[in-house]
């Protein structure tokens, strides 16, 4: 099927031949299947009866279904819903903050006319490799900035990332032709107007990429909460689930300690609960994915901006 046969239906005028289309579908589909399969398994196990799991091991069709795992996870905190709330708030605020800071910074260092671009590029890059370690960072966040037990302790430490800045700068450079910016300048537009009116719209796929990475980063973050949050009402979802998970591993590793293991074993969550936690933690974010995805798959109608 050639593109000409169907010119209206798609803007995509440069179609593959159907054989190659099938081959490409097989490659992408095959790999996707390889990735989805274990995840389906996770979902299945989370609905398996604990006893059946211990007896038969992992099975595609469990001998006995059960909701126990979810009951356990929900039971271990009416805080679960609140944790969702915290996570969503942190993710939304954080992604916005980080998109603003990163896109501005990346724009400045993408401009050839910016005299200090190399200095600031290096300034950002250097932090990718060198860091002061946990304790000094902890002191800055808690003692100097006084962020302990606030939502900002979850937002700010992840707000900027030199890696994202470098990627976004490359997007700006490659997808916005210099001539375009120069012509805007000649028309009398200032840096900000050029940035907002021309550069941003042309870099939407790049921004969406950074936005997605940043969203996922916030969503999956548990470590900052471990460090900075003592107040149980401010604990995000991943952190709560991670706490249960690591404590379970810790107790198993210290099973020779009789008083510890005797006390703690009673409340131990099991494999099925662990999988239920993965499902609960991943479910919602998968639905947020299509929001970003349209920018990766469909591309942009560039012409509108340019002409």
């Amino acid at each position, binding site marked *: 099927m050639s593109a000409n046969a169907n010119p209206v239906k798609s803007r995509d005028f440069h179609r593959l031949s159907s054989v190659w289309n099938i081959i490409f579908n097989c490659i992408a589909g095959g790999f996707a299947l390889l990735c989805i399969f274990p995840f389906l398994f996770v979902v299945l196990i989370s609905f398996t009866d604990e006893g059946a799991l*211990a007896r038969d091991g992992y099975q595609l069709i469990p001998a006995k279904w059960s909701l126990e795992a979810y009951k356990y996870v929900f039971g271990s905190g009416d805080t679960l819903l609140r944790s969702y709330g915290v996570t969503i708030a942190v993710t939304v605020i954080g992604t916005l903050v980080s998109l603003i800071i990163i896109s501005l910074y990346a724009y400045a260092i993408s401009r050839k006319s910016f005299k200090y671009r190399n200095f600031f590029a*290096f300034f950002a890059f250097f932090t990718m490799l060198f860091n002061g370690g946990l304790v000094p960072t*902890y002191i800055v966040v*808690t*003692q100097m900035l006084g962020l302990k037990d606030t939502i900002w302790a979850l937002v700010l430490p992840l707000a900027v990332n030199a890696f994202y800045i470098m990627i976004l700068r490359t997007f700006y450079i490659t997808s916005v032709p210099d001539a375009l910016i120069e012509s805007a300048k000649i028309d009398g537009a200032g840096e900000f107007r050029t940035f907002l009116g021309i550069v941003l719209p042309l870099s939407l796929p790049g921004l969406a990429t950074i936005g997605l990475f940043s969203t996922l980063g916030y969503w999956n973050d548990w470590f900052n909460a471990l460090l900075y949050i003592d107040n149980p009402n401010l604990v995000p979802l991943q952190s709560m689930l991670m706490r*249960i998970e690591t404590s379970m591993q*810790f107790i198993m590793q210290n099973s020779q300690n*009789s008083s510890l293991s005797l006390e703690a074993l009673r409340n131990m969550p*099991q494999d099925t609960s662990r999988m239920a936690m993965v499902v609960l933690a991943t479910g919602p974010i998968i639905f947020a994915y299509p929001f970003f995805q349209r920018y990766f798959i469909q591309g942009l109608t560039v012409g509108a901006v340019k002409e």
Partner: protein
Amino acid sequence: MSKKKKHFSLLLTTLLTVSLALSACGGDSKNNAGGEAASGGNKAAESTEKPVELIWYTIGPPQKDMDKVLTEVNKYTLEKINATLDIKMLDFGDYTQKMQVMAASGEPMDILFTSSWAFDYVQNARKGAFLQLDDLLKNQGKGIVDTIDPAFLEGSKVDGHNYAIPANKELPAQEVFRFNKELLDKYKLDLTSVKTMADLEPLLKTIKENEPGVTPYAMVKDFMPIMPFDYVIEKMPMAVYMDTKDYKVINILETPEIKEALKTVRKFYQAGYISPEVATTSSVDDLYKAGKWFTDRASTQPMADNLWSVSYGYPVVSTPASQPYIYNWSVMGSMQAISANSEYPEKAMEFLNLLNTDPVLRNMIDSGIEGVHYEKISDNMIKNLPDAKNYDMPTFSLGNIMINYLNEGDPENKWEEFKKFNDAGINAPLLGFNFDTSKVTNEIAAVQNVKEEFWAPLMTGSVDSEEYLTKANEKLKAAGLDKIIAEAQSQIDAWKAANNK
């Protein structure tokens, strides 16, 4: 290029200045605070006006009803010692890491949990995380000295000083062979002859032949046959013999005893009594849950058989596999220390004293509020109410357990049994000696890596012991084991001389 450099050095200079200024400020304000606190503490001692709030970090999952219970606890402590508490729970898996960061950064805290297995006691005492308690114990902590088994305070000294208050609980560590009683009864197997691992052979054979779905010996990668050694560092190959007279430090992988023991384990492994994947198995919980095991080894405490049976849902019995020895690590199983930067060390000790001697306070912190979380069914016995799940603290981590109420179903003589168990304990030779690793940290890092490479496969019988022992010993030597042994020897000799051993 040179311009760039200049910019950068300028930036660095600014940064350094800023941070130095900050650190100076930080130091100053801290000093002031310390000074004020000291005088404040004195004032409090003179007139009982201003109550003190103690920040207490301890281990265990955060509890929903903590605030409720704290209100009650604080009423009581305010009256008793003019202090209130802020208890912060950090879950088991997070505790060590978070405490390390907080202690290193000088986070304000007064009392903190420490032990041989979480936020390591000896290591952190040496690094200066805890306050030295010798004097406080004499003054504010008299009750503790009188109440708890003296072996605890004696055995938990680091370089001659106490840095934490051990919980009065089971003192020695004793290993037992545990058995799934259903299988034991089914095949009418006899336990009386089982004294050592080798004695298990005929029983395992019966199970292997008749119960195809059952793992005869449930073992995990941490397994180690019982050996007559006391280790300089747990799970490292430097040790002395249990019955040593000259305290000579040896590499246990070169002893005839280990060769003998590993032969037995290897035999079991090859006979299929042990899972072929034992060397990478960190938990056999699924076997316990499904009841698909016959025997294993565990460390015990009085009435442990009952607890095991209840938590598995089928009867479990046990028979001793070793003597009850008192080790450094068993003494340090659960302790509360006072932070080096505590602003109210005297108050903190007063509180710890109360916690370890006053049944009302101890039980309130352990079980919550009467009528809400539990109800009394006799003078010293309680029954959990449904709300107990909102306040379920790890009993062993909160000081003296022997002044706790009994739980419904516990035998009346539970604490006597504990005392008996403690009295039966035999001091291990290195009890009270703590190796200072600072001179051999590099060698320990290297030896640790070699050890981890060989330990689990060797100890679980997964590899041929003759061949791998030789290999392991060669690599250990190359990594500097001899230097560690020599250093340990000289420290032990000095310790021996100082303590007239």
